[in-house]
């Protein structure tokens, strides 16, 4: 019974924790501009994150060690450093975007300016990361993030023409008057948002924190292969509400307020209150994950003591990195940079960093010295290799498309 409960809790938190500010904004932008013409990217991205999250989770369960620790040991300090810098830059950008997203959600709820909230949010995030236990953070925000199911309810309440909706989603085409480079720019952004590197690092580091062993591989796989795809359906629902309500009105999403408006149209005030809870939970949970991932990456690469399962005094350098990252993130936001713009750039840069993040995981998962009998099978290798080609293509296309389309304008 205890095992079933743990399995369900893991799956539910994986669903609720799947969506972050990048998914919220990118899916709404894409839905409002392309309808469901880019829906095909979601399953591609979700399967990709499943493939690499399973590998990194398996590595953590078998070796009891985290990704950066092993990347440096297996591939050397230089490759490890490139991996660290690329992943860290994107994770930190996402951390800034998440803190900005929480502040915007609080502004929408209270009418108090986001710049008042930014330092308050920064301090609260840091306090939670310092004091709260790992499972409390993961379970609380993962479960609260489930409130974003309200987007799926809104789709149903908007009484769409289901056959037209399914037809549009299942026939990839750019039929909405946007240029082809813009279409592919948003395809790359959506792919980057679904495959954000921090999700994999956080997932595997969490496995080490929770002391996974080979016995936990089954539970881990259920979390990945059930939780992530269901989380992906939430992303699709966000795109669908924007496609149904905002696109016919020629509204192109630029703010977090516009992301939630279709739910207000479908479900009224109560729906919007639930949306605000979902925005807060999704962004706060992701801020904790990205904040911790920043500390994890540094500490694992340099071989410092890290994690939430040891006292802060024993992992002082890990907590110092988290504190410094929070201070710099808050300072960056206080320069009045638009968190939505930061989000839009973070998902594209995420695509750029994907090969550097995922290639070492594929190498490690194939190494029998670390993995023993749990080394990658044919299926995992076939999928891993195909996805490595896809992420290389996405990474190569990201910057040219960004310049050609002036960042999707």
């Amino acid at each position: 019974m205890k095992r079933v409960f743990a399995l369900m809790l893991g799956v539910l938190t994986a669903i609720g924790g799947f969506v972050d500010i990048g998914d919220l904004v990118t899916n709404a932008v894409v839905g409002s501009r392309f309808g469901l013409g880019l829906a095909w990217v979601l399953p591609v991205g979700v399967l990709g994150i499943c493939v690499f999250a399973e590998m990194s989770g398996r590595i953590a369960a078998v070796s009891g060690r985290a990704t950066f620790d092993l990347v440096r040991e297996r591939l050397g300090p230089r490759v490890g450093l490139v991996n660290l810098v690329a992943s860290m830059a994107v994770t930190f950008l996402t951390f800034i975007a998440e803190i900005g997203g929480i502040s915007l959600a609080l502004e929408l709820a209270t009418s108090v300016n986001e710049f008042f909230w930014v330092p308050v949010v920064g301090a609260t995030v840091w306090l939670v990361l310092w004091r709260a236990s790992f499972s409390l953070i993961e379970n609380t925000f993962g479960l609260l993030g489930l409130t974003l199911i309200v987007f799926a309810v809104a789709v149903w309440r908007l009484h769409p023409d289901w056959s037209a909706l399914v037809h549009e989603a299942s026939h990839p085409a750019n039929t909405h008057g946007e240029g082809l480079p813009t279409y592919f720019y948003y395809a790359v952004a959506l792919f980057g948002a679904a495959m954000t590197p921090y999700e994999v690092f956080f997932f595997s580091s969490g496995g080490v924190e929770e002391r996974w062993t080979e016995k936990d591989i089954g539970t881990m796989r259920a979390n990945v292969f059930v939780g992530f795809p269901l989380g992906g359906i939430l992303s699709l629902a966000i795109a669908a509400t924007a496609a149904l309500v905002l696109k016919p009105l020629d509204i192109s999403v630029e703010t977090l307020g516009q992301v939630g408006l279709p739910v207000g149209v479908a479900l009224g005030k109560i729906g919007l209150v639930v949306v605000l809870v979902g925005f807060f939970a999704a962004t706060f949970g992701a801020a904790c994950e990205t904040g911790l991932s920043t500390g994890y990456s540094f500490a694992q690469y340099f071989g410092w003591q890290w994690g939430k399962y040891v006292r802060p005094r024993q992992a002082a350098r890990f907590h110092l990195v988290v504190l410094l990252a929070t201070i710099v993130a808050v300072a960056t936001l206080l320069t009045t940079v638009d968190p939505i713009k930061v989000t839009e750039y973070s998902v594209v840069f995420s695509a750029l960093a994907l090969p550097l993040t995922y290639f070492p995981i594929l190498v490690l998962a194939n190494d029998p010295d670390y993995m023993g009998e749990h080394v990658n099978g044919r299926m995992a290798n076939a999928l891993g290799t195909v996805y490595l080609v896809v992420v290389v293509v996405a990474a190569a296309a990201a910057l040219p498309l960004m310049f050609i389309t002036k960042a999707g304008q």
Partner: protein
Amino acid sequence: MISRAAAVLAALLVLTGCVSPALGNGSYRGKGQASVQAALSEVETAALVVEQLRRDRIPKAYADETVSASEQAIGSISESFGSVQPPPQSDQVHDEVTALLDDADSAISAARIAVRRVDRPRLGELLEQLHQLADRLRDAESRLS
């Protein structure tokens, strides 16, 4: 060599000031169309918020923040278009787009005031105005494309 190139670039930037030139009539028309399209998005957002508030289907704080963001955005769109030097023979495009952006700015500002006061009769009048403005923006966008 590099420092000389940097000095020339800096001088060019100072000479051209903050006003970015449009390369030609076609390019200026394109900038006008993009501005009108962006303005349409903000006007429709304000209209949707006003409509939902009239029907008591959106919290006041949410409505206020969303319309305020649209007001801020329309200001930036206006400023951005105004900073482009119109080429000769594009005065008509300049005048038409500027007038539409000014109207959008005024209408969304009025919507923000009415939203903050939850002035329902005024919200009704503004909804009508915003819909008419959206129609004009759509006409202009198709003419400019």
